[in-house]
């Protein structure tokens, strides 16, 4: 990439350019920013990516079990509160690890992620999943005493579990797709994807597939 010769398109992108190319940079011609140093580290990058996946196994794997209980599929004889009390600390710990490693991975390539349609879609589903947790905590769970021991919880709890499962499924799927360069800025891609990825602001520019075909 051309580094700091961008023309400046928006506060977020400018901040990310600074984060990737300037933040932590020392003196000298070969000095690297912290972001570049992290990306170029021979083993730490791999360890971060691996830890992100392993944390996902803990986080998503355990939230999945709680969701199955809410759907009335697993642990039907165990009160929902009793299972949540034992499993959710593991889930929260896993989530913290996923967030920390995810932020570090983002820090290593902020501009790549910023102009990636899968990453942007992932953030939407992540937001949806987090809103669902808040709604479950403050609304659905309010009368848990009435259905705590039921093998099949009420429709509102089951709906919340279904939304949770779907949202995390999408987050994981989209997260994996980020690694693929099918819709990278600069390639001939549909106009709406160029817009969605804000390719015009990227160092590679926007190339509309329709214009190339014509």
């Amino acid at each position, binding site marked *: 990439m051309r580094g700091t010769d961008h023309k400046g398109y928006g506060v977020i992108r400018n901040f990310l350019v600074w984060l990737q190319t300037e933040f932590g940079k020392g003196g000298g011609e070969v000095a690297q920013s912290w972001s570049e140093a992290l990306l170029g580290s021979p083993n730490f990058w791999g360890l971060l990516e691996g830890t992100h996946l*392993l944390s996902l196994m803990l986080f*998503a794997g355990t939230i*999945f079990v709680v969701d199955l209980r809410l759907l009335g599929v697993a642990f039907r004889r165990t009160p929902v509160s009793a299972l949540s009390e*034992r499993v959710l600390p593991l889930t929260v710990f896993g989530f913290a690890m996923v967030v920390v490693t995810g932020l570090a991975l983002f820090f290593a390539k902020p501009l790549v992620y910023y102009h990636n349609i899968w990453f942007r879609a992932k953030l939407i589903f992540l937001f949806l999943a987090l809103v669902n947790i808040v709604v479950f905590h403050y609304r659905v769970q309010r009368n848990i005493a009435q259905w705590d021991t039921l093998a099949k919880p009420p429709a509102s709890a089951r709906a919340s579990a279904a939304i949770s499962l779907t949202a995390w499924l999408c987050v994981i799927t989209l997260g994996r797709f980020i690694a693929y360069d099918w819709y990278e800025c600069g390639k001939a891609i549909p106009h709406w994807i160029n817009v969605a990825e804000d390719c015009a602001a990227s160092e590679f520019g926007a190339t509309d597939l329709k214009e190339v075909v014509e």
Partner: protein
Amino acid sequence: MTPADLFPTLAPWVHNLQNVWPAYVIKPQFATWEVLHILSLVVLGGASILLNLRLIGVGVTNEPASEVHRNLRLWLHVGIIGVVLSGLLIGMANAERLYNSAAFTVKIIALVAGVILTYGASAPIARADGQVSASAKVWWLIGLAVFLFGIGMLVTSKLINPGVFHVLTAAALIVLFATHGRMRWIYLAGLLVLIAAQWLGTHVVVKQTDFERLDPTNKAFAWVFAAWILGFAGWGLFGARPGAANRPLVQAVGYVTILVWVLAAAAGRWIAFA
């Protein structure tokens, strides 16, 4: 050691594998099948972690181990079958790379150990509420030997050996969950000191560009981490809580059966890096 080193005569067959059905069908949708592989790992991870933590004596301890197993066994099957099937399909479409990957060798060894430990030891012990049969003991010993062989293979393979820190991290966290009271804080403080010492040792004492000294320094720290974690795990198994939830052998099965799947997943990820 790569599969190519172990089975050199298979090279032509492996080379042609991507042209065989269903590999050529899978290849264009490789990413989708990869997602299935990861989702299977997630299902397996959740089920295996909760079941084996129960054997260690933490997690869902308000239910007997047999009840935890009864509720999770379907998802264990789904996870393992999903991992194997999706792995076979994406493996066929990516055969040449796997054939030359030491990480793939480690992954397959871990997979074999994982299946042996899960179905031969962990599940039967959970089903019997902590009673260990003679056959479970035999499968435990076989599975443990295969697991240690996989660890040995990972540690001695160039370029992928940093992956052992995944197993160490997972082991460190399980011991953290399983340790109680003041010992937990001592254990955690020791871990933090070691992490700080490793950072200083590999950034200040030895420079990041000095690869000749960096590699042995990291290896030495891996051994110190392993000794610290194993020491506290051993204390938890044999020295602490005389009336503890489960017998040392049952807890050891729980520890190793979680770690074997961590090894399989970590090795799988390192296929992409080296």
